[in-house]
């Protein structure tokens, strides 16, 4: 009896590790930028290439920075959620058109609707690197002082919006 107890115990431990491992998502890497100042940028606007959008203009309010692209499937998935946030007017969303083509991006927004206040163009993906973006969509919650408070990797789902992002935004807006 005792002979089987040890292998069985080991088996249970291994199963335990595997069970926990299955619930983790290896694609979600904790960002070292949460709690740090959002990297500054100053970029051409998508709709009006003559104009520039700078991160400094956005100081003093809580805002969402959403990295997206017309070629990105997950962006399509989260798009209705973004539209809903925009319609509620609770927090402004600024878009970052990441490694995309202007004409394609404009057509995409025209077809599906534009949830963004302003869209910046990051064609070479440099601002993306500064923000530690490794896959679109990624969304950052940035507070009034310009500090990153939360990073959403992958599409924003309804439950994440209700449980994490909106409560955080409301709390930050009170500060």
């Amino acid at each position, binding site marked *: 009896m005792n002979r089987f107890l040890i292998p069985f115990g080991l088996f249970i431990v291994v199963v335990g590790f595997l069970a926990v491992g299955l619930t983790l998502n290896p694609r979600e*890497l904790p960002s070292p930028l949460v709690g740090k100042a959002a990297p500054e940028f100053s970029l051409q606007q998508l709709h009006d290439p003559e104009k520039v959008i700078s991160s400094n203009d956005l100081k003093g309010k809580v805002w969402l920075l959403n990295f997206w692209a017309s070629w990105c499937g997950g962006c399509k998935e989260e798009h209705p959620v973004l539209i809903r946030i925009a319609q509620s007017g609770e927090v402004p969303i600024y878009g970052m058109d990441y*490694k995309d083509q202007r004409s394609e991006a404009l057509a995409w927004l025209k077809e599906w609707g534009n949830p963004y206040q302003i869209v910046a163009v990051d064609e070479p993906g440099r601002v993306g*690197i500064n923000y530690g973006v*490794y*896959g679109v969509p990624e969304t950052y919650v940035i507070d009034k002082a310009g500090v990153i408070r939360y990073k959403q990797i992958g599409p924003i789902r309804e439950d994440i919006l209700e449980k994490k992002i909106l409560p955080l935004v409301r709390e930050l807006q009170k500060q």
Partner: protein
Amino acid sequence: MRWLWMFILFLPGLAMAYEAQPLAANPQAEARLKALAVELRCLVCQNQTLADSNAPLAEDLRREVREMIAKDMSDKEIIDFLVTRYGDFVLYRPPWKLTTTLLWLGPFLLLGVGATGLVFALRRRQKKVTDVTLSEAEHTRVEKLLSEGVHRP
């Protein structure tokens, strides 16, 4: 007609071949990039190095590293640049930290546990072997059985 054939025959001669272009104008910088890129992980295809990956992000990061090499930044500065943006995960060799202690020591810990288990198991087995002593009667019986076995067809 014959002239036309001649023309077609010699047409490929007009296509000139060039020597393959080197990857970078500066082979020294490229060697440094390569040495760095095998130590860095591609964030998109997580089991490939930055050197192996064809993902667009890996291309961008190689471009970024190339530019930093051109700016004469040290290897440590370049690695710090990436770690502040992407975390320790970009490193194939994670640094010694409180959170990575188990990662570094785990294999040795398991080796220790295995070795102690082995020593205990071997000792127990040895005890079992020496514990058995045969009486005279048993000894003769064993010999009898063994000799019978030999004679069996």
